């Protein structure tokens, strides 16, 4: 819990300095992830027990290169640090730096010091000092930077206890600035000081140069009397940056020694291979291939296990609980509903694990470098690769990850096309349909055909994303300056703990976020499927008896006939039947129609819906959803409902259709307009319908 008695600690640092590892070391799994109000920036708070029975709230702020914000993630940092009334306003700031990039990392440190917050300098990755021939004069650095230094290795886990000690004694840590940057334009800053004597000079400067909310002061007042042209402000910012670097260089000249003769370097060797004009791409595609093959192969066992367990749990509940409506709801609505959510866990966890490893290792930046020129041909940026790859987990964080694309047109196109990539919510739909219509055989003895189909679907998603980007690039007339700056971090072995925590958190967020919707929809569906209006539903037994009067059925067949008569005439059956004319050219029956309606807001509901529908109407012998679906026969043609043609048509429909309310909401938020999400919905779903129609008509 966030408690007022706890010390508020803010973790601040450049990207790629191991800030999150320090956060994980301090808090363990004791973390809460939420959002800042009104915006979709992730807010991570953890809790930490310090010596002397003191506790701390640790806030992990988004990574930022400086307090000159260029994205909403970075704005969050400044807005918090400017607002003393915020309940998370830090009592002490930890600026996390990487010992190998100390010079650049200290820029942010000197800015934080100017805000007169007690600041501890955390020098991370200390385990690499020997390897790189680096030695530090800690007392000298502490004296000149006016701070306390914690030398830690979040990787090896040392220095953390000492850091905790420093946090406890935060009141003794200096809050004095370590340099006077106002000398860059003495006259200007003096008049600013005179006009607002009670405010920190640096705060005023940030308010003038940044587009941030500033509560206590009339921002317009400051701005109107101290405004300068954009170029003049930027010139001053450049002077400020030079001033800060001069100071940092002076301090490091004596405080940091690098013996290059013993420094080892594998970065350039790895770079030579990983960004090679042939090997670079070969390796990239091999990695993608391994990811997709393994998601399908490795997840299969736990998924089958979860599927089967929930099926038996469901029949157990039906047998053991007293018969009645409530039992039916539990065994046919709630249990299959929950099973439909939990079955995603293995695949989602694998995907997040791979993405997290690619990011942590530093490889993702090389992909950006490798792909930029190619992506630009399609109106995208090399940085679009990250959203497109993480879109394979979920489009929502992927769209948020477009924030570091500096060029608005490239960013907008990336946002618009990202939902075409195969997100994890499509996986269960794909998985079950592939399992039904693609034979489980191996091509050339080692290529699993189901895995290959899955990979093809992924490629199709990417291809469609790229293709629509190309079209959008031609259509959209937006002029914006193209800036492109990518840090190429050091290669690092991914930390098991970081990857693990990330996987657990993301999976949890998915299960609880999507899970609530899926569960609610499952219950509603169960009601709609279990009740119906009029005679046809209520007198199902009599109707079936009458229809089969000449040819009496066995008791089991009779029950089945009654169940399907009921389902067909239930509320949901009526709805499904109503849209059947629109979807039968695509090869779908009314039951699939129901699943498409219910998955309109979230694709993953598809499987859960079918699970619920078939649990209500199906026979007792077929236990798992898959078997039930495989046994479905079209009463008119006598063919299987899920055959090759309708299966492919469904796969294509789900590959292209925009069926995710959350993605539309996040597109609205990030583009600040309903125009773009509306366009996504109409174009994607219309296209999906057309493609599915063509595919079925050709294949049937």
């Amino acid at each position, binding site marked *: 819990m966030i408690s007022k008695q706890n010390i508020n600690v803010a973790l601040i640092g450049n990207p790629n300095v191991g800030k999150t590892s320090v956060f994980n070391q301090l808090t363990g799994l004791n973390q809460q992830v939420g959002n800042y109000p009104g915006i979709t920036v992730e807010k991570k708070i953890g809790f930490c027990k310090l010596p002397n029975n003191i506790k701390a709230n640790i806030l992990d702020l988004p990574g930022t290169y400086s307090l000159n914000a*260029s994205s909403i993630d970075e704005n969050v940092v400044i807005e918090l640090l400017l607002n003393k009334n915020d309940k998370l306003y830090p009592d002490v700031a930890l600026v996390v730096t990487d010992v190998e990039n100390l010079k*650049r990392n200290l820029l942010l440190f000197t800015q934080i010091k100017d805000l007169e917050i007690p600041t501890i300098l955390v020098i991370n990755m200390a385990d690499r000092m020997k390897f790189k021939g680096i030695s530090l004069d800690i007392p000298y650095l502490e004296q000149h930077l006016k701070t306390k230094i914690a030398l830690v290795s979040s990787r090896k886990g040392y220095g953390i206890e000492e850091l905790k000690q420093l946090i406890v004694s935060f009141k003794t840590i200096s809050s004095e600035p370590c340099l006077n940057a106002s000398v860059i334009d003495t006259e200007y800053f003096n008049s600013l000081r005179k006009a607002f004597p009670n405010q920190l000079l640096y705060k005023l400067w940030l308010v003038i140069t940044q587009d941030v909310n500033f509560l206590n002061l009339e921002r317009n007042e400051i701005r109107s009397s101290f405004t300068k042209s954009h170029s003049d402000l930027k010139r001053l910012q450049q002077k400020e940056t*030079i001033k800060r670097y001069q100071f940092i260089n002076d301090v490091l000249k004596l405080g940091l020694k690098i013996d290059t003769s013993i420094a080892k370097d594998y970065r350039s060797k790895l770079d030579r291979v990983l960004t090679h*004009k042939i090997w670079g791409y070969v390796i990239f595609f091999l990695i993608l291939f391994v990811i997709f093959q393994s998601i399908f192969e490795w997840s299969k066992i736990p998924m089958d296990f979860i599927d089967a367990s929930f099926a038996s749990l469901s029949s157990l509940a039906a047998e053991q609980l007293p018969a009645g409506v409530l039992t039916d709801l539990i065994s046919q609505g709630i249990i299959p509903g929950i099973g439909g959510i939990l079955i995603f866990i293995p695949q989602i966890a694998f995907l997040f694990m791979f993405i997290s490893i690619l990011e942590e290792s530093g490889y993702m930046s090389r992909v950006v470098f490798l792909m*930029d*020129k190619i992506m630009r041909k399609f109106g995208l940026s090399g940085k679009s690769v990250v959203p497109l790859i993480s879109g394979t987990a979920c489009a929502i964080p992927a769209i948020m990850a477009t924030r570091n694309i500096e060029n608005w047109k490239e960013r907008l196109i990336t946002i618009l096309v990202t939902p075409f990539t195969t997100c994890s919510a499509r996986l269960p739909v794909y998985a079950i349909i592939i399992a039904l219509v693609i034979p489980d055989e191996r091509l050339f003895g080692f290529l699993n055909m189901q895995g290959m189909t899955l990979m093809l679907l992924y490629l199709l998603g990417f291809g469609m994303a790229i293709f629509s980007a190309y079209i959008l690039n031609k259509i959209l007339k937006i002029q914006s300056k193209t800036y492109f700056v990518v840090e190429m*971090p050091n290669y690092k072995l991914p930390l098991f703990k970081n990857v693990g925590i990330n996987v657990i958190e993301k999976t949890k967020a998915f299960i609880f976020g999507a899970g609530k919707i899926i569960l609610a929809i499952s219950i509603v569906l169960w009601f709609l499927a279990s009740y119906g209006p009029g005679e046809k539903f209520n007198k199902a037994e009599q109707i079936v008896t009458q229809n089969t009067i000449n040819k009496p059925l066995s008791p089991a067949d009779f029950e089945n006939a009654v169940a399907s008569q009921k389902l067909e005439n239930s509320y949901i059956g009526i709805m499904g039947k109503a849209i059947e004319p629109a979807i039968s050219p695509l090869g779908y029956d009314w039951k699939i129609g129901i699943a498409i309606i219910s998955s309109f807001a979230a694709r993953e509901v598809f499987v859960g819906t079918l699970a619920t529908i078939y649990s209500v109407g199906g026979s007792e012998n077929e236990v798992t959803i898959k078997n039930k679906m495989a046994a479905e026969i079209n009463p008119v043609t006598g063919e299987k409902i899920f055959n090759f043609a309708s299966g492919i048509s469904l796969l294509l429909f789900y590959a292209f259709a925009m069926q995710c309310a959350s993605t539309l909401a996040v597109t609205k938020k990030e583009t600040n307009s309903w125009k773009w999400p509306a366009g996504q919905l109409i174009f994607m779903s219309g296209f999906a319908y057309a493609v599915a129609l063509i595919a079925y008509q050709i294949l049937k």
Partner: protein
Amino acid sequence: MLTTIYSLKKGEKAIIKDFDIDAVPLKLLEMGCLPGNQVALLQIAPFGDPLYLDINGSHVAIRIETAKEIEVDIIKTNL
């Protein structure tokens, strides 16, 4: 023709001289792209763009169009 980062060959080092402040993003300045600092061209991406640089100890990639804006003096190495 002006000598810029774009003129560098792979492996070459140079000292940053000057640039048009409006053509270079602030973020790049903060990474250490400032007059007087050293820059080295480490890698060129396939198809010639972007460029992977070591600027004052920071490893960054930028596009050619930005590289063309940054004037430099090439450091001659005597072999």
